[in-house]
């Protein structure tokens, strides 16, 4: 049972973001790419927030976001992209998929913790 699903192909980023959130009292699940993210989200209805990279092997984060809405039919989970990308075209695609927000790496936990907690109802 987790509140936040962190999706990133880099174990470094998964550890950095996951450890920070855990230290701040949040329950975290991890996924290695978009395909894994879909499986983890489908298997854990307690997840309220997905924090995902964009560029990943097997399935990228934006495709995953689109499939969360279309294939899983999950319209309620909040999705935030955490990526080095800052392209307006990508952001527009994310908005169309119903993502909630966009963070440009590097991750600065203190800047987003309060919002994350609010989004998961903590």
């Amino acid at each position: 049972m987790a509140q936040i699903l962190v999706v990133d192909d880099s174990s470094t980023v998964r550890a950095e973001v996951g450890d920070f959130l855990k230290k701040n009292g949040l329950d975290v699940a991890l996924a290695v790419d978009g395909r894994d993210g879909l499986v983890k989200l489908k298997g854990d209805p307690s997840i309220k927030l997905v924090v995902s990279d964009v560029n990943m092997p097997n399935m990228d984060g934006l495709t995953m976001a689109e499939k969360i809405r279309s294939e899983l039919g999950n319209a309620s989970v909040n999705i935030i992209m955490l990526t080095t990308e800052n392209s307006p075209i990508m952001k527009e695609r994310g908005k169309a998929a119903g993502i909630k927000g966009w963070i440009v790496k590097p991750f600065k936990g203190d800047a987003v913790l309060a919002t994350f907690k609010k989004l998961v109802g903590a």
Partner: protein
Amino acid sequence: MLTQSAKDGFDTLLMQSLKSGMAPSGAQVEVSTLADDADIPEKKMVVLTVSSYLFRLMVMFYFTPDTATRAHFARINNIDATEMSEQTFMDAIAESGNLCCGILNRDLGNFFPHIGMSTPNVIDSNCAAYLQTLNCQHVRHFAVDMDNSPRFHVTLSVSVYADIDFAVSADELGSDTGELELF
């Protein structure tokens, strides 16, 4: 043709990204240019490319998988170096290059809207000897120095397919990374 202003712009943006992406948070970073690659002793490198239809640039992050380098990346990732697996070490190096190049990619996007970046690849640094076959119009070598870390080296090479001219001003450096943009 690549103008001098454009060459300086590529160099400036990369140097800025190295300062932001290679060091532990809050650490002092000095980035300097080298006359050539004769003083680059590292045996491996992480390679990434940033490309548009106007140019392709490659950034090579050299490293040696020794104790000092492991300690540096363990420190960045807040883990004990003795507990760092080979896979975690390699992933940390790749992610460091990915982060630096991501910053460069993002900043270049202000000048070239249609731009994309590769994923990192680790290869033998001897491969750098074949750079000239890419017909590069600009090659620059950098040294990166941080407190309590080994010196790292980075090479930038730029191949262009059209005339390129742009200028980076000091006012354009720095960005709002880490902030959450809500939609």
